[in-house]
């Protein structure tokens, strides 16, 4: 699995409890959901990434936002998705080609509401910091 986003999606899709909260395991998207998608679903996106060099060697640090999204007055479905996502991702070892995961851990909450035609779309998730290095 060459990409970080692919590895994260693979981890999430492999968790039966998480997938059971979604219409199907295709409802996990990178960057944005297709225009006609109906919540609940999960969106992952890269918030930041940069290398750190130490005496010529380097490791990569990146921040990934992973959100559960639901629609309606009640944010519980998104809250539940977030809780399960954390259980799956915290300290997980990502399957990355040619790189080793040194650290993948919750960093900070992301929680806001989006107004769309009178309805509230809840975004509940977190940023996770990944530190990896070449093998």
């Amino acid at each position, binding site marked *: 699995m060459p990409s970080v986003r692919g590895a994260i999606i693979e981890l999430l899709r492999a968790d039966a409890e998480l997938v059971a909260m979604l219409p199907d395991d295709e409802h996990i998207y990178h960057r*944005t959901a297709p225009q006609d998608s109906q919540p609940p679903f999960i*969106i992952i*996106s890269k918030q*930041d990434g*940069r290398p750190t060099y130490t005496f010529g060697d380097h490791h990569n640090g990146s*921040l990934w*936002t992973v959100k559960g999204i639901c629609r309606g007055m009640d944010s519980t479905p998104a809250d539940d998705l977030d809780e399960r996502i954390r259980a799956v991702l915290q300290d997980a070892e990502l399957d990355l080609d040619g790189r080793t995961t040194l650290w993948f851990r919750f960093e900070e909450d992301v929680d*806001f509401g*989006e107004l769309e035609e009178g309805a509230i779309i809840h*975004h509940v998730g977190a940023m996770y910091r990944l530190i990896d290095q070449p093998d």
Partner: protein
Amino acid sequence: MAVGGRFASAKGVRSARVVGPNGSVVTMTSRFPGIIAGLEMRTRVASRESAENILEDAQNRAPEGSRNFVDPETGEWHPGLLKDSLYLVDLDIAEDWAVASDLRYAPYVEFGTSVMPAQPFLIPALEAERGPYIARTTAALQAL
């Protein structure tokens, strides 16, 4: 050896007179009060400088914005609306500062919506300043 119990406190300096066995007197001066006084001021200056850098970087990274998002006061859109909305807030807690925006859609841009990809401008600015902030604070403390 006797230690004189006289401590003088003037201009943030405390001193103690120590009388040795041969009657010699040594005055020891503590720099801690001065260091403590300088510590807060120097870290605050360093933090302010980092906060200003984060603000400027975030302004440079802020996308011009979608025409779907308008100025809540005027109901109009103009290029750089998000950039212009960013400002520094003194949280008045130790050396803490915040970069803020009053635009409702600012988090939509930073974290994306259900149908719009994220265009991060604040978190990358914060992350870029992490190293310089540590270096700046270290240098400020070493100068004490």
